[in-house]
């Protein structure tokens, strides 16, 4: 089955080659970071977590969002998701691997990473986060490979896999909840210490993840024979609409509590985000962009007329994704440190090294997802390229009974 990923058209190889190049460049920058230390990043004594940890947080959400196709399909028998459910699971696998890599590149002593396992510490949320992320990775690898193997043989998946699928649903919720607990349990950081953080993480995950899945489904339809189907895409669109509304609602809850209670310790962080503090306006244009995109996305998604138009839906998905990426991938982590507990307003912006290493990690994720999808679509005989007709025929013959 895995061999399906290493045969393909020129375009496929060009894309794989491009990703390999991005990964290679990222790796070179990582070597630079290894030899000089994390001083090559924009991080400092006051802002000690930045772009890496923010990408980790964002991607945990993307990984968790697979549950938005798994749950309707397996619990509610929503048949329209039959074709994309495995894409959602493979997507989760790629995202969890990126999450782990982002934590790894953020470590000051990466060669001591095993200390987390050698000295397990249940009072640290990081221990639990590693536990739930590895569990989620294992579950999704197992489920997607078993289901795909059965599909290849044209038989129904074995019964014993069902409990794993059922467990993977609450498990998806757990990965983003525990990731929120990493932050929301810290008395030191007023910006993060809010009970609404975990629900906010989930709402933003369940909108940004499916939004990305819609975009992928549309792209894949253009370049392969695979069509997720209009019904599936429209249903995902509805999910994105609801989740995005709920996400914005939770942000407004946060704003009310902060603004009305008027506690400076909480207020200063929001001031920094939206208006700038002590002349530090780094994130102001970004945050307002995020706000505008969020509003645009809700208008386009809630209105059935615009949502049903696939081009507008795709545009709305881009606005959702970018809006949430700014909120979580730029604003959320850094703002916990600005202002510092001592009242300083430090500056932070990722350096080129930091950015290129991050691109390298994204490259690894994109490559994995490409290989998984290629494998899946080859098994189903839905690859347009006929460079390998033998394979195509063989696969097509196998895929038919699976329907």
């Amino acid at each position, binding site marked *: 089955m895995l061999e399906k990923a290493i045969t393909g058209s020129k375009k496929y190889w060009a894309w794989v080659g491009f990703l390999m190049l991005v990964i290679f460049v990222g790796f070179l920058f990582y070597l630079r970071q290894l030899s*000089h*230390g*994390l*001083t090559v990043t924009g*991080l*400092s*004594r*006051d802002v*000690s*977590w930045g772009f890496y940890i923010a990408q980790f947080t964002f991607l945990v959400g993307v990984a968790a969002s697979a549950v938005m196709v798994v749950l309707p399909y397996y619990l509610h028998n929503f048949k329209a998701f039959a074709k994309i459910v495995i894409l959602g699971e493979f997507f989760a696998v790629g995202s969890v691997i990126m999450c782990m890599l982002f*934590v790894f590149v*953020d*470590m*000051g*002593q*990466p060669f*001591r*990473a095993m*200390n*987390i396992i*050698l*000295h397990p*510490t249940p*009072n*640290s*949320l*990081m*221990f639990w986060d*590693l536990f739930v992320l590895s569990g989620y990775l294992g579950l999704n690898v197992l489920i997607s490979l078993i289901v795909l193997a059965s599909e290849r043989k044209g038989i129904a998946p074995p019964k014993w896999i069902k409990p794993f699928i059922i467990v993977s649903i609450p498990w998806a919720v757990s990965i983003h909840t525990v990731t929120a607990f*990493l932050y929301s*349990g*810290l*008395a*030191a*950081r007023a910006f993060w210490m809010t009970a609404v953080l975990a629900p906010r993480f989930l709402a933003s995950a369940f909108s940004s993840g499916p939004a990305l899945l819609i975009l992928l489904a549309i792209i894949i339809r253009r370049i392969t024979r695979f069509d997720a189907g209009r019904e599936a895409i429209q249903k995902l669109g509805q999910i994105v609409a609801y989740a995005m509304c709920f996400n914005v609602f939770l942000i407004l809850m946060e704003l009310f509590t902060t603004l009305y209670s008027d506690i400076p*310790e909480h207020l200063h962080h929001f001031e920094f985000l939206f208006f700038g503090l002590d002349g530090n306006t780094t994130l102001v244009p970004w945050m307002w962009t995020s706000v505008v995109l969020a509003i645009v996305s809700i208008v386009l998604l809630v209105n059935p007329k615009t949502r049903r138009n696939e081009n507008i839906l795709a545009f709305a998905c881009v606005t959702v994704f970018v809006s949430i990426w700014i909120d979580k991938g730029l604003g959320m982590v850094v703002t*916990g*440190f600005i202002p*510092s*507990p*001592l*009242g*300083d307003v430090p500056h932070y912006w990722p350096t080129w090294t930091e950015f290129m290493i991050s691109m390298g990690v994204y490259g690894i994720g994109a490559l994995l997802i490409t290989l998984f999808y290629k494998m899946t679509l080859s098994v189903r005989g839905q690859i347009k390229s006929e460079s390998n007709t033998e394979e195509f025929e063989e696969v097509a013959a196998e895929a038919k009974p699976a329907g």
Partner: protein
Amino acid sequence: MGIDRRKFLTIAGLTAAAAIGKKTLGDSLTADTRELLPKDESLVGKRWAMIFDIKKCLHKDGCTVCMDACHQIHNVPDFGNKKDEVKWIWKEPFEHALPDNESPYLEEEFKDKPVIVMCNHCDNPPCVRVCPTQATWKREDGIVMMDMHRCIGCRYCVAGCPYGSRSFNWRDPRPFIKNENPEYPTRERGVVEKCDFCAERLAFGLQPRCVEVCPEKALKFGDLEDPESEVRQILHDNFAIRRKPGLGTNPQVYYLV
């Protein structure tokens, strides 16, 4: 149950053997190995605490004696920039160090006045709670310690500390140590460090370096569990405040105002 003759002889013999053994073992130790054993004169406490007298400190404007002394003996590097900075003890403006205690009227006396800050060696330390490898832990005597060989450099403790007391080695500190003290280890890149209440000096019966060198005697250090201790007496006779006590960390650095 009485002891019969045989049992008595056995016990007596063993005791004698143990006594002789101890003596010979003690004699055979070289001067070097003896250094490593806990000394009789080591300071033993049940709850170490520091008291800082703000007004005494203000007598000497711009004084940095305690900071310089601490950073010198602990091989704290000086990178000359704020981004990579590592510090164990330093000065913060009053309203930054003690934000819960500022008021427009207090300001006249203390506004922008420097206050010494360091690790509070909290009784309920959030940094210890969050560390995923137990590289930082609280000792029986209350000192919050760091194991720089176990630390993975995740900086969760830095995020968890409400006092900004922890520094990370963003780059190799060794080339930036001006006057290296061979008796204290240097650190490598990628680990977190902070004040350790001079645990290494307490073991030899010495007071923390900052307390020892302060020309104004503005710092006092001692055991709060001992009712006869000077620090207990000072806290009994004076009104002392602590940094962010509302967070429940129970900091053990007290400030006299």
